C-alpha cells in the first residue's frame, strides 16, 4: 500500500506561503456586497468642509428615527479637488471608496467625463421621483450642475445667491446711497469714492495660482447679466454680447478704481484690503460671509450689511448663483441603500434644510422651505442683526440656471489667462472672449 510521504519543511513553508498569499488576496478584494437593510451602520463620509461634517453628525438622530438604521459616521476630510482624485484612485483599486461624498461644484465636472458618473455614482433620479412633490420642489438651478443626461448624481448643499456685501458705516460716512441702483450708476459712485477716499466698491481676483477664483469674479456678473459659460447641452456659449458687456464693465472699473484687483479673495491680500478700508463692498455669493469676511475681519462684526446686486441697465437678473457642493452616493456597495436613506432623511427634509441655513448659512434647495417662518426670523450678528432671509426669498425666482461641462476646467484655464490680459489692457474684452473661445475649441475633446 502506498503511504504518502510526510511533507518536509520546505513543502510546509511553500504551503504556508501559498495560503498566506491567498488570504492576503482575499482580504484585498472588495468588501462584502451583501446589501445592508437595517441595524447599526457606519457610513464613510468624505468632505472638504467641516460645516458639512457637523451638519451630518447632528442629523443622525433624525435619520435614525426615520429609517431602520442606526447610523455612525466615519469622516475623512480632504481638499475639494483631492476628493475626486482620491475617489477615482480608490475606485480603480476596487476598494476603500466612501459611501457619501461631497463634490465641490467646480470639481464635479471631472465626474462628468466619459462614463465616470454612471459607473461610480448612484443615480438619484428615481429616488427623487419616488418622494411625492419632491421633484417639483427641488430647484432645477441646483440639480442641473450635478446632472448628466437628465439624471441627478448629487444633491446640492446650497442655493448660493450672489449678493452685495458692503460696509454700512463707510457707506454712511461717504454718503453713498444704499438703495439698489444700476451697476452703471454704482460704478460712477465707485469712481468718485476711489478718487476721494482711495476705496473700491468691487473686487476682481487675480490669483494666478487659482484659475477658479479669477473666473469667479467675472462669472458672477456674467450670469447676473444673463450670459453663461455652457448651455444645457454643454455647448460653450461664452462668446456673447452679455459677456463682452460684463468684461468691459470690469475693465473700465479697474481703470477708474471702482474695481480693485486683489490676488486672493480669502488670503492675506484681501485681509489687508479689508482692514485698510480699501475694499468697502463687493459682489459675492452668500457663503463669502463665512469663508471670507468672518475669518479675515472678525473685528468688523456688525459693520457689514447685505443687499441685492445693482442691475445692469441693459438687462439681466437681480442675482446669480456661484458655488455649491453636491453630495453623491457611491453605487453598488453594501451601504448604498443606507446612504441614500441617510442623505434623503437629513439633507432633503424640510427641517434638515432649515437647519442647514441656521447652522451653516447655506440656503435651502427646496422652494417650499423658503416659506418657513423660522428662516425669515433669523438674524445675522455679523451683519448687524440684519434679517437676511427675506432678501434671499425675494431673489430666489431670479436665480439663473447653471450648467456644467466635462471640459469646464479647460475653459477655466484659458478664460483666466485671457481675463487677466483684458484686465491689464493687453487685449480688448472682445478679443479676450474670442481668444478664449478659440483656445477652448483647440483644447477641448483631446
Amino acid at each position, binding site marked *: 500500500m502506498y503511504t504518502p510521504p510526510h511533507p518536509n519543511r520546505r513543502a510546509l513553508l511553500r504551503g504556508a506561503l501559498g495560503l498566506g498569499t491567498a488570504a492576503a488576496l482575499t482580504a484585498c478584494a472588495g468588501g462584502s456586497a451583501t446589501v445592508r437593510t437595517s441595524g447599526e451602520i457606519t457610513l464613510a463620509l468624505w468632505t472638504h468642509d467641516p460645516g458639512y461634517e457637523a451638519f451630518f453628525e447632528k442629523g443622525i438622530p433624525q435619520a435614525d428615527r426615520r429609517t431602520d438604521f442606526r447610523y455612525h459616521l466615519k469622516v475623512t476630510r480632504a481638499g475639494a479637488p483631492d476628493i475626486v482624485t482620491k475617489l477615482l484612485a480608490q475606485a480603480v483599486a476596487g476598494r476603500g471608496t466612501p459611501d457619501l461624498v461631497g463634490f465641490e461644484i467646480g470639481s464635479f465636472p471631472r465626474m462628468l467625463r466619459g462614463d465616470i458618473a454612471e459607473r461610480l455614482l448612484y443615480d438619484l433620479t428615481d429616488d427623487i421621483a419616488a418622494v411625492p412633490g419632491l421633484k417639483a420642489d427641488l430647484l432645477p438651478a441646483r440639480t442641473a450642475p450635478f446632472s448628466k443626461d437628465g439624471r441627478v448624481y448629487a444633491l446640492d448643499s446650497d442655493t448660493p445667491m450672489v449678493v452685495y456685501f458692503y460696509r454700512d458705516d463707510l457707506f454712511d460716512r461717504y454718503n453713498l446711497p444704499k438703495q439698489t441702483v444700476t451697476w452703471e450708476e454704482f460704478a460712477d459712485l465707485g469712481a468718485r469714492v476711489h478718487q476721494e477716499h482711495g476705496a473700491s466698491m468691487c473686487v476682481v481676483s487675480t490669483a494666478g495660482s487659482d484659475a477658479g477664483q479669477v473666473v469667479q469674479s467675472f462669472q458672477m456678473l456674467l450670469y447676473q447679466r444673463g450670459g453663461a459659460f455652457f448651455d444645457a447641452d454643454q455647448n460653450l456659449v461664452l462668446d456673447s454680447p452679455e459677456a463682452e458687456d460684463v468684461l468691459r464693465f470690469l475693465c473700465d472699473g479697474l481703470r477708474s478704481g471702482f474695481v480693485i484687483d486683489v490676488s486672493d479673495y480669502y488670503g492675506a491680500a484681501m485681509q489687508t484690503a479689508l482692514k485698510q478700508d480699501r475694499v468697502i463692498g463687493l459682489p459675492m455669493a452668500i457663503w463669502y460671509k463665512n469663508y471670507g469676511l468672518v475669518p479675515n475681519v472678525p473685528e468688523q462684526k456688525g459693520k457689514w450689511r447685505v443687499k441685492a446686486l445693482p442691475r445692469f441697465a441693459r438687462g439681466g437678473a437681480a442675482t446669480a448663483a456661484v458655488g455649491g457642493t453636491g453630495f453623491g452616493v457611491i453605487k453598488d456597495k453594501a451601504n448604498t441603500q443606507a446612504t441614500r436613506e441617510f442623505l434623503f432623511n437629513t439633507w432633503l427634509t424640510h427641517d434638515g434644510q432649515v437647519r442647514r441655513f441656521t447652522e451653516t448659512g447655506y440656503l435651502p434647495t427646496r422652494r417650499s422651505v423658503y416659506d418657513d417662518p423660522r428662516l425669515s426670523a433669523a438674524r445675522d450678528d455679523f451683519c448687524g442683526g440684519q434679517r437676511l432671509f427675506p432678501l434671499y426669498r425675494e431673489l430666489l425666482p431670479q436665480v439663473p440656471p447653471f450648467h456644467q461641462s466635462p471640459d469646464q476646467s479647460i475653459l477655466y484655464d484659458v478664460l483666466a489667462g485671457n481675463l487677466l490680459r483684458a484686465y491689464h489692457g493687453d487685449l480688448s474684452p472682445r478679443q479676450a472672449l474670442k481668444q478664449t473661445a478659440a483656445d477652448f475649441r*483647440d483644447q477641448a475633446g483631446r
Partner: protein
Amino acid sequence: MTTAIAGPPRSTGDRADEADTARRPKSSWAPYLFISPFYLLYILFMLVPIVVSLWLSLTEWVGLGTPHWVGLRNYRLLATDISFHRALGNTAVFVLVAVCVVVPLALLIAQALNTRGLRVRDLWRTAYFVPVVVSPILVALIFGLVFDRQFGLANSVLRALFGTGGVDWLGDPSLAKASIALVMLWRWTGYLTVFFLAGLQNVPRELYEAAALDGAGRLRTFSTVTLPALKPVTAFVVVTSFIGAAQIFEEPYLLTGGGPAESTLSVTMFIYRAAFQRQQFGYAAAAAVVLFVLVFGLSRLVNRLLGIGRAS
C-alpha cells in the same frame, strides 16, 4: 617540449573542501535571493510603470473603466497642441535658467565661501542651504505675499525707493516667468553651492601655490586650476540641475498655477493637468513619454559633452 608546472602539495583539508563543494548543488539560489529585493522593486516601481505608461499613451482613458486603444493619436494631437508647445518652451526657459544662471551663480558663491579667512563660514553655508529645506508650500505662500501687486513687499520696496510700484509680478506673462526663475534661483543656488564647496575643498592646495608661484592672477587661477579641478562636480551638478529643471512642478504650480495664459505652465504641470484635472490619462501618459524621451536623450547628450564616465 612541454613543461609541467607542479603546484604546491595539496593538504588533506583542501581535499575535504573539494568534497564539500562537490556535495553542494552546482547552482545555488542564495545569491539571487539576496539581490532579488532590488530587482523586484526595480521591476515593480520602474519597469512596470514605464511599460504601463507606454501602453496607456496609446489609449484614451478617463481614469475609470476600460481604456480605448487609439494608437498614436495622442502623439499626433500633442504635435499640434499649442498648450504643450508652450509648456515645452516654458520648461526650456526654466532649464536654461537652472543651467546657465543657477549653476554659475552657485559656483561663484562657493568660490567666495571658500576664500581663506572668511568668518562664520558655516553660518553662510547654512543660510544658503536653508531655502532647500523649507516646504514648497511655505515658499509659495511667502513669495505670493512678496510678489502681490497691490500689497506685496517687492512693490512696497520699489515704491519706497523709486516712488513707483504696481508691478504685476505674477499677473504679467513675462514677469510671471521671471518671478518663477527668481524663486528657482533663491531655492536651488544654495543647494548647488554645497556641492561646489565640497569640490573646492578637495582641490589640492599645492596647485594654487604652484599657480601663485607662476604669477597667475585670480582669474587665471580660477580658469586654469579651479575649473578643471571641479569638472567632475560641475558635470554632476549640470546634469542633475538639467533633469530637475526639466521636471519643474512645485514652483509654478503653487505660485502661478501655470498662468497667466499658460506663461509658466511646465511640461510636468501639463501632464498633471491632463491627468488630474481633465481626466485625460492617455494624453497625459503620451506627454510623459515625450518628456522622458527628451530628458533621457538630452541628458545623455550633456553627459557626452561633459565627458562623464570617460577616463580623463
